[in-house]
Each structure stands twice: as structure tokens, then as C-alpha cells.
């Protein structure tokens, strides 16, 4: 079974929990005292991941870190439909990779702002927020045009990809970092669609859709 070195409040760890739930993959969570214990910076944890960050997975001895890299691995290994990480469609794969890089941007802005507010990380909060708004504005326009094309997801496919999962938590938790989504209605509608996926799970600060 996969072991996930995990922290409940981490958006990047949630990406893995969500992905595994959507793919119906069983795993064990090993909680890391990320805050205030900084366990991921400790000597013991650095034996697992010398970079000193989470999430990390251990799949029967195969150890992998970096949130977006783990999504690639999970989808490639556990999605028999080949849709989440579409290796058989070069164009769609390219798009997916491109939006995965975009997700690095939302992580480094929107989610960084959240770390600053919630856990006191020493980031330039104004730069984080401005950067997040810049990316959200682009993404809102992108998703609005996708809707006009009859598409629901970040990539041009008629199904979600790991790019949606990589971006979603940074977006949906942004209010915690002081980044309002009021100006991004298409972005809000897309978060509703992600929440409607079978197997969707929540974390503190992320609410489910209604029951009907």
C-alpha cells in the first residue's frame, strides 16, 4: 500500500488525497507535524526526503516527492482509462504539462499567501496576492472560453486531467490567503464542477456541493 507523508491543512497534500480518492486508490496517511513542529525539516524526515518538504509518497519502497510529480505518477500508474494523465494523446499531454506549470504559479502565489496568513511564513504577501489575482484573471478568462466551447475543464479534453487537480486546491482555498474570487465567476463555476466529480473529498476550508 502507498504511504502518504501528509499534513491535513496542506493544499499540496490534499491534492494527493483527492487524486487517490478520485482514482479509488487505497493509501495510508502518515501525519507529519508540519506546524508548529516543523517535522519535515527535521533530520529523521530528511532521510525520507532530503529536500525537506511534503507531500512524499512511498509506494512499496518507491519514494517520490513534489506534489505535481506525485500526481503524474499516481495518474500514470492507477488510471486505467489513461485520461487523467493522457500519455497516448501528445497534444493533450502537452496542454496538461503546460497547465501543470501554471499550477506551480498558483501554488507559489495563492497558496503561498495562505501559508503567510495561516502559518506565518515570511513571504511578500502583497506580491503573492497580486500574482494570484493576475493568474486568476487569466484562468477565469480561459475557463469562460472553455465554457463557450462546451468544455468544462482546464485542458481542451471533455474530461478532467491532473492539471485540474493541481490547480483546484490553490484556487478554492485562496480566500484564506486574502485572495477573493469575487471577480472570477467562471473560476467559481469550475470549482463547482470539480466538486461534483465522483469520489470528490473535502479538507478543512473546502466544502462539498449540496446533496442535490
Amino acid at each position: 500500500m502507498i504511504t502518504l507523508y501528509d499534513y491535513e491543512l496542506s493544499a499540496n497534500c490534499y491534492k494527493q488525497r483527492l487524486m487517490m480518492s478520485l482514482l479509488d486508490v487505497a493509501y495510508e496517511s502518515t501525519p507529519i507535524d508540519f506546524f508548529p513542529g516543523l517535522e519535515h525539516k527535521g533530520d529523521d524526515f530528511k532521510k525520507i526526503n532530503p529536500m525537506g518538504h511534503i507531500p512524499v509518497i512511498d509506494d512499496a519502497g518507491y519514494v517520490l516527492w513534489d506534489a505535481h510529480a506525485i500526481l503524474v505518477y499516481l495518474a500514470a500508474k492507477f488510471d486505467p482509462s489513461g485520461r487523467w494523465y493522457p500519455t497516448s494523446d501528445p497534444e493533450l499531454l502537452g496542454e496538461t504539462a503546460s497547465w501543470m506549470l501554471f499550477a506551480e504559479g498558483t501554488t507559489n502565489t495563492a497558496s503561498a499567501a495562505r501559508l503567510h496568513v495561516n502559518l506565518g511564513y515570511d513571504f511578500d504577501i502583497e506580491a503573492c496576492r497580486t500574482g494570484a489575482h493576475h493568474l486568476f484573471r487569466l484562468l477565469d478568462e480561459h475557463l469562460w472560453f472553455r465554457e463557450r466551447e462546451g468544455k468544462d475543464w482546464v485542458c481542451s479534453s471533455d474530461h478532467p486531467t491532473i492539471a485540474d487537480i493541481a490547480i483546484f486546491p490553490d484556487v478554492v482555498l485562496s480566500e484564506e490567503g486574502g485572495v477573493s474570487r469575487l471577480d472570477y465567476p467562471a473560476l467559481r463555476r469550475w470549482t463547482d464542477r470539480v466538486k461534483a466529480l465522483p469520489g470528490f473529498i473535502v479538507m478543512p476550508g473546502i466544502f462539498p456541493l449540496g446533496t442535490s
Partner: protein
Amino acid sequence: MADAFSSWHPLATAYDLPHRHIFHGQLLGRELAVWRADDNFINVWENRCLHRGVRLSIGTNDGAELTCRYHGWRYANRSAGCTYIPAHPADAPARTICNRTFPAVERYGLIWSGENPDGQPPMVELLETGSPFLLRNLPVNASADVVLEALRDHSFQPQGRLEGQGADMTVAIVGDYGLALTSTDGQASTSAVFFVQPVAADRSVIRCVLAETPPQSEQLKVWRHHADALGKLVNRAEATFATLPAPAPLVATIEEVPIDLSVMPEMATDRRAALRVEVSRKWTTAEGIAAFELTSIGEPLPTFQPGAHIDLHLPNGLVRQYSLTNGPGETAYYRIGVKLDPDSAGGSRALHESVRERDVLAISEPRNNFPLRRDALRTLLIGGGIGVTPMLAMAQALHVMNLNFELHYFAQSNAHLAFEEIRNTLGNSVKVHLGLSPEQTRAEIEAAVAEFDYANQLYVCGPGPMLEATRELAAAAGWPDETVHFEYFKNTNEIDDSSQFDVALARSAVTLPVPSGSSILEVLRANGVAMPSSCEQGACGTCTVPVIDGDIDHQDVYLNQTERAAGDKIMTCVSRATSTRLVLDI
């Protein structure tokens, strides 16, 4: 520029309100939750739960009601009144718990609202005669006046010449917050109307509508062209705005809690008929049962909850009680069913024979003495004949919330089954029992109530003997008294009003004698005590008063055995005292 607070502004676009979504909007600094119910009504509400102030835009829209994310308070479509508070499952929320609402009008594909708008949203000739085509809205970090100014220099290419440049632009003013721009390039010409929504002192949204819809194959290109052109405009407006001194922020005033919410309400003085309604539809829903839809001719109808009834004041002076059959969110009218009683004193006969569509009737506000718990693991609803009406309202509420219930509906024959259109929405949860003898009815009820389990609740309404049988069988099957809820049509007990006694009003320090032949209610009213009442025969529970001391001679059919034995409340319209003195907590 006219007063922004008395103007209509577009605050959303039709595509912003997809099925069961809650749009997060803002106008003049005030945050709004905007949602479309399944009946297409558009709700524009203050984005703030009355309870703890949490944003309603993170709640859920089930098509009928909006539920706050925090403690699950439910608010009705249209009226925005609270219909259920999960922490108080046995109680009907006060009608005064109502969110602040703002008007909404859908025009040209835009949703218009305002703080306190005069008249109607602007009529735009170009859009009236054309085939409006909605473009993408653009948020701008600049004030509305800066954006409007920048729009005067905006240019785009007309349909058919999208690839060209340097089209001639003409500008016309549309209302206080809009501009109509026409782009002409050779033979090609396109008009667009731009409305600038003042979101806050330093933010706006440009909402744009083309006068003519381009052919399907061109639409994506048109959208893209305008998005690019407007993107440049946004950059320009934001750059200009950044050089100006920052305007004072617009701070929305949150209305104070109204006085009637923060103090104990005045007691209703009598059987008031506060509302005027029009019979908008009358039809025969089953043999001997007429159905009525009653639509307000003044203010929107007050919020109701399942189990609620209204007093209907008939043209012949009689007052009768009828349960509402409405489902959650069905707030545009009240719907009742009236059975023609062959022994009618004139109530049901008047409604069947004299009252017609377009007639105006006087009704009371809805009152709920038969509230529905929504925390049961299983709810059993039993309705006999016309007693099905409150059960239908309850069943619809449980159905919308995906709660486990069964509705047993007893009727004489297929032709006597009312409100088929409602029953059809309830799936397999309705069990119909037709043409049964009293013994067979008893056997079916016995089977239905056979199993009591933790957190089961039973609601029953129907003829007296059926209620007696249900209560008795449920008690025998182990249903505790507090899980069996019932509502009688009428009190068939003969009222013995021969006793004489005193009532002491503890809070008022008044003692009044109640002579034989008079009810407590009558004596209280005759002495100037304001008292609410409805059926005045001990069936509905409206005139209940807490009792501090004395022995009660219960003659009503509202209280159950446990409540009677507790001896701490009395139905003042029929019940009396066996002691010489009764101390009331009023």
C-alpha cells in the same frame, strides 16, 4: 452622474447563474448572494447569514432553498425567510427571521438589481429591436467613472471586418452607467452596449451586449475579438485609475436587526386576516376536493414551513383553517385543498360553490403548530382523506433534503386521491391505501407503525377515529409520546363549560373570574388581554398559554398524553380548571 444608489445596475449575466449555483456578486460595496431557484426566480440577497454572518455564497442551492454552510439554517426562495434551524429541530422558526433581499429583473440577458432602485432598468432601443448577444464581462480595478471615460475611446471591429483595423467609432450615452458604441468599417457595422457595474469604489465590471447575434460559426471569433479589445481598455483604465488619488471606500451599511426581531413580538390580538390574496387558480383535484392557488395582491407572501396552516376568512363571515400543501421554495402562491363536507356549516360549501378564480380573499399569515423535524432517521407520514394536505408539504420538504420517509395515504378510491402532480414528484415513498374498511385501515396502520427505532418520527393527520387508532397502535408498538405528532381537523369532543373558577395572570397581577358558559379566551379578551387564536375549538394549538399552578381540565385534541399530564400548558379556547384557581404565565 445620478445617484448610484437609486439606479439599476447589472450585477450578473444570465450565464453566471447555472443550475443550482450561487453567484458571488458585489454592488456599490455590498456583497450579494445571487441564485436562481428551480422555478426560475432570481434571488438577490445580502451575502450574510442572519445567524453568524457567514457568506451565503458558500452555502448550497438545492433549487428551492439556500442553506447556510455554517449551521445549516435554511432560507426560502423568494421570501428569504428562514424555514428550518437544525439546532432547534422541533420548533418552527419565527417568521421574522428573514434575509435582506434586493429586487432582481432579467433584461437583455443581464440580471439587474440595486440598493434602492427607482422604476425599471433602462430600456435600450438597440437591444429591444435586435437579438442581444452577451460578451464576456471584464472585472476592472478602477472606479466606474474612470471606466466609463475610458470606454469613450474604446474601439473594436465590426462583424465581418474583425481582421481589419481603424473602424469608425460613434458613441451614444445609455442611462447613467452605459454607453452604446457603433463600429463602422466600409459596409460592415456593429453596435455594442457597455454597462459599467460599480462594484466598489475602486472596482467595476464591464458587462457588454452586442445588438445582433453573429452566426454560430463566427461567435467564438467575435468573443475573442472583444475580449482582446476590452483587455486593452481594462489596462488603460487601470493605469489611469492608479494615477488618481484613491477614492474613499464604499462601505455597505448592514441593516440593524429590526426591532421586531430583537424583542418579543406583540401577541396577535385575535383572528387577524392580515393578507389579501387572489384566487389565481381553482380546480378539482379529486372527487369532492377543490384545490386553490392563492396569490398575493400586495407584498410577497410570508414564509411558511411544512405543517403550517392559514386561516381563511370567507365571504360569508366564517373562518376556516387549511393546511398549506406547498413544497419548499414554492413561494409564489399558497396552495390548499378543500374537501366538501356534506354537513358543512357553510365553510367548505362556500369555497366549493361560491368562490371563483380572481376572487379576493382575506387570510392570516401562516402559522405552524405542526412543525416537522428534519433530524429523524426515518419519518412516517400518515394521511387520511383531506388529512393528506400537511403530509404532502412535509413529504416534499423531506424529499428535497434526501431524508428517509414514507407517506401512507388512505382514501376511498382512486378518484378520491388528491394532488397527483405533487405525489408524482415523491417517487416510491408514497404508499396508497384505497377503499379500506375501518378494520382494514387499522391493520394497515398497525403494519406501518410496527417498527419503532431510534430517531423515528410519526406524523398523522386525518379523521378523528383514524388518529385515535394511530396513536393507540403507535403507543402499543413502542413509539414514545413525543415521537407521535398529530393534527385533528376538528375537536369532536363535547365541550363541558359548566365549571366556574378564577384565572390569575401571574405577570399582570390580575385575577379574573371565569363563569360557566364562557371560555378562558373570551374572559381574557373581554378584559383587554391580547390573545391569538385560530380554530377556537381546541384543535390547532394557537391559543396555548403556559400554566404555573392549578389543575387543568383538558378538553382539547391538540396536546398529547405526556403534555396533558405535565399540566404546564392549556388551550384557552376550550380547556378549563378543575381547581378553583388557575395561575397562567401571562
